[in-house]
Every structure is written in C-alpha cells, then in structure tokens.
C-alpha cells in the first residue's frame, strides 16, 4: 500500500475500492438512504449526518454537478425534491464517480417510471434499496448499466408469474420511449 500515503499530485491508486459513499437526500437535506463504505471515514451515523447536512447546504441551491468537500469529491444531481450524491476520495478519477452517479440516478428513475420525486420513491423504497445494493458492494462498483441493475432490482413476483419478466419488460419499454 505504498500509494495511499502519498500526497497531492500523485498517481491514482490501483484499487477497486473507489466509492466512499452514496446517498439520497430530500428537499430538507434529510437522509432517505445512505451508505458509507470506508470505515476510516465517518464511522458513526452522527458524523455521517453532519456531513450530509453540510453537503446539502453547499449544494442544494446551485446545481453545479461536483464539489470538493472534507477531503472527498462529491458528484451530485437533483430532481424535484430529491438529491442524489456519490462520494469518492479526492485522489480519484472524477469521471468514474460520475458514471456511478449516472447509474444510480438512471436506475432509480427507471424504477420510479420517470417520476423522480420523494413520494414515489418512498412507495418503492424496497426496489431502490436493492438498486443501491446492485450498484456498489462494499465500495466496489458492481454494475453501472441501469438496465441490468433494474432488471435485478425490480422483480415483483406476486404480480407476475415466476420466470415471466413482464414488469421488467414494461419498464424497459418505457425507457426506450
């Protein structure tokens, strides 16, 4: 681990552990869902929520896509009353973080059938939790393709007989429109 200690101006570290955290906040900056993957940063809920408040205060007015905060690079995107964030180390390729944010936002958007707002998200919270789990595993990017993420997170089998993925198909159709 020669590269972790080196300072500003260094090469990116060859690791798969790229995502430090992901969260969705509401229009008051309150947490809807959040996951932090590095036990060395923000180990307790108290610190995490303080960080989220700070992050929200600095980002909710200007939709400026990216911010450097507390040694982290945070990419973000908002819609109606929801704010999506992906965090990584400040020594990380920003465009990789952006690709994770795109995957998160697009997956949720498909799951909510393009109604990206808090009320609809709360009604589908279980699917969104599964999507979180499909995108990132312990800080490693597991998948970044929204259609395959949704395909694995959206199955409702009491509506559909097992094996017939009509719900997913319907969602994918909606996506292609």
């Amino acid at each position, binding site marked *: 681990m020669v*590269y972790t200690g080196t300072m*500003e*101006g*260094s*090469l*990116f*570290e*060859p*690791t*798969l552990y790229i995502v430090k955290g992901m969260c969705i906040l509401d229009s008051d900056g309150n*947490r809807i*869902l*959040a*996951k932090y993957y590095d036990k060395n940063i923000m180990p*307790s*809920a*108290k610190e*995490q*929520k303080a960080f989220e408040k700070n992050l929200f205060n600095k980002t909710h007015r*200007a939709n*400026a*896509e*990216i*911010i*450097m905060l507390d040694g982290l690079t945070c*990419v973000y995107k908002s819609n109606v009353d929801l704010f999506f964030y992906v965090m990584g180390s400040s020594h990380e*390729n*920003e*465009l*990789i*973080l*952006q*690709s994770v944010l795109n995957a998160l936002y697009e997956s949720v958007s498909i799951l909510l059938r393009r109604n990206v707002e*808090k*009320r609809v998200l*709360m*009604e589908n*919270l*279980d*699917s969104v*939790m*599964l999507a979180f*789990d499909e995108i990132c*595993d*312990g800080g*490693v*990017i*597991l*998948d*970044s*393709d929204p259609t*395959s993420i949704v395909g*694995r*997170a959206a*199955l*409702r*089998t*009491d509506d559909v007989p*097992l094996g017939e993925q009509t719900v997913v198909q319907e969602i994918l159709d909606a996506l292609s429109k």
Partner: protein
Amino acid sequence: MSSFKRDKKEEEDSGGSPYANLDKTIVLQEARYFNETPVNPRKCSHILSKILFLLNQGEKFTTQEATDAFFATTKLFQSKDVMLRRMVYLCIKELSQIAQDVIIVTSSLTKDMTGKEDLYRAAAIRALCSITDSTMLQAIERYMKQAIVDKNPAVSSAALVSALHLSSTAPDLVRRWANEAQEALNSDNAMVSYHALGILASTRKNDKLSTVKLVTRLAKSPLKSPYALCLLIRLAAQLVENDDSDAAQPYIEFIECCLRHKSEMVIYEAAHAIVNLRKSARDLAPAVSVLQLFCGSSKATLRLAGARTLARLTAKQPTAVAACTVDLENLISDPNRSVATLAVTTLLATGAESSVDR
C-alpha cells in the same frame, strides 16, 4: 372510481409516507408476522424494508433486538418470492453486523448459491461471503471457484467481488482462485473482466514480476471495459514510476495510446497518469491538450477534472501549463465554485499577473 382512488391517494399523502415516524419497537413486533404460514411476500417485504430503513437512518439496535429480528427473518426462506428473498439477503447483510449466531443461515445461502435461480445465486453469494469467516471459507471454496467462472455475469461478478473482500482476511485462500479469475478476465462482460483484473492485481500486489507479466500481456490486447482499462493504466503507471529505464517504454506507449480511447473516463485516466509521469514539456503536450479540451466542456465534472490535473502540473512544470492560460482564465467565473477556485489558484501560481487582473 378513478376519483375515489385519487381521494384515497391524497388521504395517504396527508398522512405522510409509510416510513414517517417509524417506531423501532413496533416494527420489531411486526417481524412476528414472519412466523405466519403461508408467507405473505408483499407484507413481509414491506416490514423488512422498514427494518432496513431504520438501520439506514442510524437507529441503534441492541444485540438482542438484532438477533431476534435476524432469526425471525430466517423463517422467510420458505417463501420462493424473488423480491422477498432479495430483501432477506439484504437484511442478513445488515443485521449480521450486530446480531449473534448469524452463521445459522449458511446452509440456506449455500443452497441458494448453488440453486437454479440466477437472481438468487448472485445475491446469495454476496450475503454468504459477508457472514462467512476464514475457517468456514474452505467449506464453500469449491462453489466459489465454480461461481467465478459461471456464465451468468451477475454470478461471476458477485463471486469475484466477494473474493476481493475476503482477500483481506484470507489472502492465501483467495490466491488459489487465481486460475478461475484469469479465465473470468476473458469474459465478454465488461464488469466481469474488470472485477477479475481487480482480483489478479490485488493478489499480485507484492509480486512485481508477475504484475509486469500481467500488464505486459494486457497492454498488447487491450480490454474492452473502460473501468478495467482505467485500472490497467494505474497498474502500468505504477510500474513506470518504479522503473525509469527503457524497459518501461511499452507501458508509456500503452498509456499514451489510451489518450485516443472513445471513453472520456479512460482518456482522463491516461492524461492524469502522463501528467504525473512524464518530465519534459514535449512529452506532456498530448496529455495537456486533452486536459485543455476538458476545461472547455459543458460538463462541470470534466472541467473540474481538467482544471485540477492542470493545477497539479503547475507545481511541477509551470511552462507546460502556459499554453492553457486562456482556458483557465475562462474558468475564473465558472458557475461551479470548486472549478473557479482551482482556476484562480492555478493562474496565481503560474504568476501571470495580467490574467488575474482581467
């Protein structure tokens, strides 16, 4: 009829979301429904998501509470509902951090991991590896090896990423899976080859010779996945940094070649590496002109990436950044404050007073 529905909807709205003001004690009592047969998947899934929501909000569960909830959850394995099963896995992962005797689900998860339903398999592997310790790992080793080379990409990726997590506690065991990882590296699926390269790189971390072999071979037949390419660039850059001789020339060539890739992520990764490796302004020129283009992008993330890497270069090679003065000046009034700040500090460091005046 439809207006009736809408009224009902509005009524629900005024009552807030089903997750507003949840009480932990009540939710944990609701977990008793899990004992009912037959299992009602919708209802149970909803209760599980309430438990997960509370945990996610930072609510503290005692060991006893978590253990009780965990054991109640294991009852749900009798339902075959895919969505419910996936929520059960998620709960297992979250509660296993607090609850006791979580290894009780090992056999259920092993069964799902080797079963027919692909959607169970991938998620079951990840849940299983999160509760498994290194002593139990040997019992599932055979299944892990099979899963790594499985033709379903989700299964293969799940096994590879789980193996990577396990390699911090059981490095020797995971090293024995290198042949399977090597096979997965050739997968057509971008994520599978990325995860496989991650495992191979991490098991060779302290073995320079085998890292050289790996990078040399892959640099000749580049990988399709942009993520994997970024990792390969990092590995190559590391080799160059540790070896100044001509032997490093092929790695430099490979990285420079990546400047022409179609993915911005890869282009930036290559430019960043070159900026940190090359010394003469002439060698830096192709990377600098890429970063210059980034500074003019409509996407803030690209502008920031470009400006930040140029800012770093300024400290080392101010002359190389001189060509970008105008581009950086344009960023002084950037709507993104991080970008604007970077541009100002960079221009101050290059010492071009005239540009700051403007």
